[in-house]
C-alpha cells in the first residue's frame, strides 16, 4: 500500500518523480491514480498534456508547458499547480486552485501551508484570477526552498 493512501499526502519520492527538474515555470500534475478523467488534456493550448486512454495518468511534456496555468481551474481534482521556480533569486511563485471566500487580494500577506495544512511561513499574493467555473487561481510568492511544499494559503485575520 502506498503511503499516500494512508496519509492523503504525497511522499518526497513521488514529488521527485512529478517534478524532477525544478526549474523554469512549469505545471506540477499531482495526479497519481488511474481515475477515469481527462479535462486537463483539452485545457492545454500548447498540447503539453497527453493521455492515451481515459484511465491513464496525464503525461506532461515540460518543454511544451509555458506555465500558463489554464489547466489549474479545469482539473476536477484540484490537483494541478504551476510553480515558477525562477521568479527571483530567492523566491518562487506557486499558482494554486482556491475555492473559498473571501478571496485574498493582490498584495495581501497570507499564511502559506504545506500539503498537511501546516503553516510553513508567510507569502504574498501577486495574482488572483477568477474563472467562470468558480475555481479561482491564486499566485503566491514563497521562499524558493518551499516551492514544492506550499500548496495552500490561509488569510491572516
Amino acid at each position: 500500500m502506498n503511503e499516500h493512501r494512508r496519509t492523503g499526502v504525497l511522499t518526497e519520492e513521488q514529488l521527485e518523480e512529478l517534478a524532477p527538474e525544478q526549474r523554469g515555470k512549469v505545471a506540477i500534475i499531482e495526479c497519481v491514480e488511474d481515475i477515469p478523467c481527462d479535462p486537463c488534456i483539452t485545457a492545454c493550448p500548447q498540447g503539453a498534456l497527453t493521455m492515451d486512454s481515459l484511465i491513464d495518468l496525464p503525461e506532461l511534456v515540460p518543454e511544451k508547458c509555458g506555465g500558463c496555468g489554464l489547466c489549474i481551474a479545469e482539473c476536477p481534482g484540484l490537483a494541478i499547480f504551476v510553480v515558477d521556480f525562477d521568479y527571483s533569486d530567492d523566491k518562487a511563485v506557486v499558482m494554486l486552485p482556491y475555492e473559498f471566500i473571501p478571496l485574498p487580494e493582490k498584495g495581501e500577506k497570507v499564511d502559506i501551508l504545506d500539503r498537511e495544512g501546516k503553516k510553513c511561513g508567510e507569502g504574498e499574493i501577486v495574482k488572483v484570477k477568477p474563472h467562470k467555473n468558480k475555481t479561482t487561481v491564486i499566485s503566491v510568492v514563497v521562499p524558493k526552498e518551499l516551492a514544492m511544499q506550499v500548496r495552500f494559503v490561509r488569510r491572516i485575520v
Partner: protein
Amino acid sequence: MRITEHPLLEFERGKKIYFTFNGQIIEAYEGETIAAALHAQGIKVLKQSIIYKRPRGFFCAIGKCASCMMNVDGVPNVKTCVTLVQDGMVVESQSGRGLLKTESQPEKSTIKKMSTQIAVVGAGPAGLMAAVTAKKFGAKVLVIDENPHAGGQLIKQTHKFFGSSREQAGTRGTQIAQDLYQEAEDTLMLNASVIGYYSGSHSLALVKGTTLVELQTEKVIVATGASEKMLLFENNDLPGVYGAGAVQTLMNVYGIKPGHNMLMVGAGNVGLIVSYQLLQAGVNVEAVVEAMPHIGGYHVHAAKIRRCGVPIYTSTSIQKALGEEYVTGAVTISLDENWNPIRGTEKEYTVDTICLAVGLSPSVELFHQAGCRLAYIPELGGNTPVHNQNMETTLPGVYAAGDAAGIGEANTAMMEGKIAALSCINTLELSTDETVKELEESFRELHLLRSGTFGERARQGKEKVFTLWREHHE
C-alpha cells in the same frame, strides 16, 4: 445557521413565512422543508422514539429513513424532511406511533388514470438521464419522484465531475442537475410516491397528495437510488448524527449549516468530498476517521482537505456519540489489524455534529414488491436487482438504473440511465439504426468509466449480477 455567502452557490430564498413548532413561532422561507427550517433555528429534536422515548432527529433528509416524522396540521407521521413548509402550518413533535384525529373531516381523495410509454421512478442522475434519452428518441415518458426537487443527489454535488470530456467531466454536479432538469422538466411529476407495481396490467400505482393514480405503462425504469448505511456505536440515534447526504441537503440545497464542529466518519469519496464542502460552507471539520487501514476515496479528494489542515486517521473508528438530547461530542478509537478496538487509544472530540459516510445500499423496495429477483452483492452495496447488460431485471419490461441497480457513482448512474432508456426504445417500435448504435456506444462509455483500480469492485459486482441473470434465464 443560515449561510449568507458561499464560494460556489447562491441561495435564492423564497418569501419569508411563519409556522409554529410546539406552539413556538418559527421563521422560515418558502421552498424550505419543515425539517430544514427547524434546523436553521437550531431545533434538532423532531420526535421521540416509539418505545424508549429517546430523542430523534432526521438522518437521511431525503425521505427514506423515517426518523423525522412529525405531526403536521394534525396529521401524524409526516416526513418533514421532504415536506415543504407553508405559512401558518402547525408542526408538533411526535411521540409514539401518532394518532389520527378522526373527528376532523379527511380531505376528499380522488382516483385518476394515466398512461405513458416509459415510466421512470426516481428523478436522480439515472432517472433524469433515462428521461432525457427516451424523450430524445420520441418516447412518451413520465418521471415520478417523491422529493420536492428533481435531480436527486446531483443537486448537492458542488464539485467538478471526473470522467470523460465527451460527457460531463469538468462540470459541477449542480450544473449537470440544472441542465438535465431543463431538458426533462415536461416529463416530471414531483412530490409523488410510487406505491406498487402490478404486473397483470403492467401498471404502477402512485400517490400524489390525495390523488391515487393508476399509471398504465409499457416499460418501467426503476432508478430509486440508495439509502445511507448506519454504523453501530453507542448513542448512534442521537439527533446530530447525520448521514452525509443529509448534511449535503442542509448546506448545499437549503444553505443551512448542519453544525459548527463536525466529526466525519468514513474516508471514501463521499466522506472526503462532503468534508471539503463543509469547509467551504464555513463549518470546522475536526477530523476524518476511517476504519480501513487506508483512505478509500481518491487521493486528490483527500489531498484537498489535508492541505486545509483536516487530519485523516485511518484504522480508527467512532466508539460513541456523547450528549443527552443531541450530540455534544464524540469518542474515537484506533483499531488493530483484526479490526478490534485498542483500549487506551480513545480520543474525545467536542463536536455538535457527527457525519456518517460509511457507504450506501441500493433502495430495492419496489423491485422486491414487483417480484424482480434480488441478490446480495457486497461489491454493489447489498441487495441488488439481478439484471443484464441492457439493465433489464428478471421481470421483462422492468429495468434498473443508477445506485438502485448497485452502488456506483453519478457518471456511471447517468450512463446506466441512458442504457436503460435505449434498451426500452430498442424494444418498442421507436428503434432505429441510430438508437442501436447509440446503445453500443453507451456500453463502451460505461466500460471505460468503470476501468481502473477504483472501478474494480463495481466491475466484479456487475459481472456477478449479469451471470445470475443468465443463469435465471437458462
